[in-house]
């Protein structure tokens, strides 16, 4: 049984990672997720991170990490060289999410993507009533200091996958403390998608507004 003190989004990702498999975390930050996966699932971990201060923390946690830009840092890896590639809270921060996602799908047998939902109800309210760019727990930055370059909703992401023939194997939507089962694009702060690139367009209506 997993410890409930573990962040909900991490718990969901843990469920989708096979024990003793190989995992590449693109934009691994301070290595919290990878070191958790090492501890709980005994995975072979590799991270890529652009911030050197974050790398120091990865090394402290014993996580192997490359100082590199994921916008350019994948061509060395062979096709399907990792069991799982993770893009958690990082795809909205890269210059070319389309390219990075395509590369992630090439390198990984499975790709787990976690995105902050720009269409979350509080964000909608803030734009509507205050006329300001929303600041929410999953989008905690102000316009002038945000590392996020792209703003997307869960529906945007699903539509993109459909267009690109990327199959969404499963999706999980998270609110503050629990999973969201109805109207995720309105009520969820974060969406976690498990993707496979098998050119089958089976994206059924996972999301309703």
């Amino acid at each position, binding site marked *: 049984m997993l410890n409930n003190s573990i962040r909900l989004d991490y718990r969901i990702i843990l469920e989708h990672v096979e024990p003793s498999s190989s995992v590449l975390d693109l934009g691994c930050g301070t290595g919290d997720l990878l070191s958790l996966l090492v501890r709980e699932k005994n995975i072979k971990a590799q991270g890529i991170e652009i911030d050197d201060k974050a790398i120091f923390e990865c090394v402290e946690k014993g996580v*192997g990490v490359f100082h590199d830009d994921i916008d350019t840092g994948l061509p060395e890896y062979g096709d399907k060289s990792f069991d799982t590639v993770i893009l958690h809270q990082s795809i909205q921060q890269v210059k070319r999410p389309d390219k990075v996602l395509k590369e992630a799908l090439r390198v990984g047998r499975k790709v787990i993507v976690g995105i902050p939902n720009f269409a979350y109800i509080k964000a909608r309210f803030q734009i509507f009533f205050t006329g300001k760019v929303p600041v929410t727990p999953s989008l905690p930055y102000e316009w002038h200091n945000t590392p996020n370059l792209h703003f997307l909703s869960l529906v945007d992401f699903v539509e993109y996958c459909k267009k690109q023939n990327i199959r969404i194997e499963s999706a999980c939507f998270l609110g503050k403390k629990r999973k969201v089962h109805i109207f995720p694009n309105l009520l969820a702060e974060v969406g976690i998608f498990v993707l496979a690139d098998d050119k089958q367009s089976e994206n059924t209506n996972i999301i309703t507004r």
Partner: protein
Amino acid sequence: MEKSIVNTKQINRKKHQEDSFTVKTQYYTFASPPDELELESGRKLGPITLAYETYGRLNKQKSNAILILHALTGDAHAAGIHEEDGQTGWWDNMIGPGKAFDTEKYFIICSNVLGGCKGSTGPASINPRTGKPYGLEFPLITVKDMVNAQRCLIDHLEINKLLAVAGGSMGGMQALQWVVSYPERVCSVIPVATTITHSPQQIAFNEVGRQAIMADPNWNDGDYYGKDLPAKGLSVARMVGHITYMSDVSMNEKFGRRFKNEKKPFKFSPEFEVEGYLQYRGDNFISRFDPNSYLYITKAIDYFDLANGNGLYAVLKGIKAPFLVISFKSDWLYPPYQSQEIARACKLAGIEATYCELNSNYGHDAFLVEVDEQTHMIRHFLKKVSHSNKVSEEYAE
């Protein structure tokens, strides 16, 4: 994070003042005829003496030994205070109790390279066949030969497997050669500010140095022992070297356009501080370095080509030892792209690796002076390697 680095800084400084241990250099002689060491060139060399120092204690299982490899003009005296001349080791800020290479935990070995002039066999040593210094009779040596000689020393110390091989610049090349030559005898690799092969720019700077030495009339085709030394040639070589070790920013900070104090009539004597510094460094070098060694060793690193024309990942394939690769942003002699090549090859070869480009203004010298970040990376890396190799802290009585 900021805070923890500051803390390490304070601890390091404090430690540095407290722990000045005295050390002495030891010597190991081997490969006496007829069992000479066969060099990569096919020539045989022997007997060979390696000067080496050790710090810390070897544990019962002999599993906590780390081999430190020195750069172009380094020597076996890596840490502590030398009992004879009172000199501090060249990587003393990184090796010692509580430091990156913690002598409370690890047994550290550092030896002067084959071809060197600080106690190991090199061109200034006596050729047993003639009874005179080798000079240019000394065979061409390579980084691989340096490593093979070190392997004999490690055998002599009865250490089967090194917990880590680590070094900066030419030391990094040796570390890389170690894991490629003896993958079963290395648990981890720490190449710092180094490359798998010299670029034309690096060869070019070395060639200027060599030409300066050989242009000195005292050089006399390498036969100058007991006569006037090619001091001026070596001095110019060293001056060029020093320029390449610094960066535009660090030179600006250190010297600016400041003038030296004394005013002399204009005769092209050093006026700017930077000129004085380079001349001082160059002129002092003859007292501690043999010009022929400089020729041989620079040639060895120019020839170094770890991948040998193949893809590096193919050479690294099958290696189990994790890598910690470090480069420095302002290092233009061994630019970060060369370390990235190593990191990329690790990715392709499926080697567990960490690569970090550290922020520093010190140029290539950074690997000797940027202590805090390197300490943080290396300490934690070694901790993990010790853990996964089950290194015990049991010591023989």
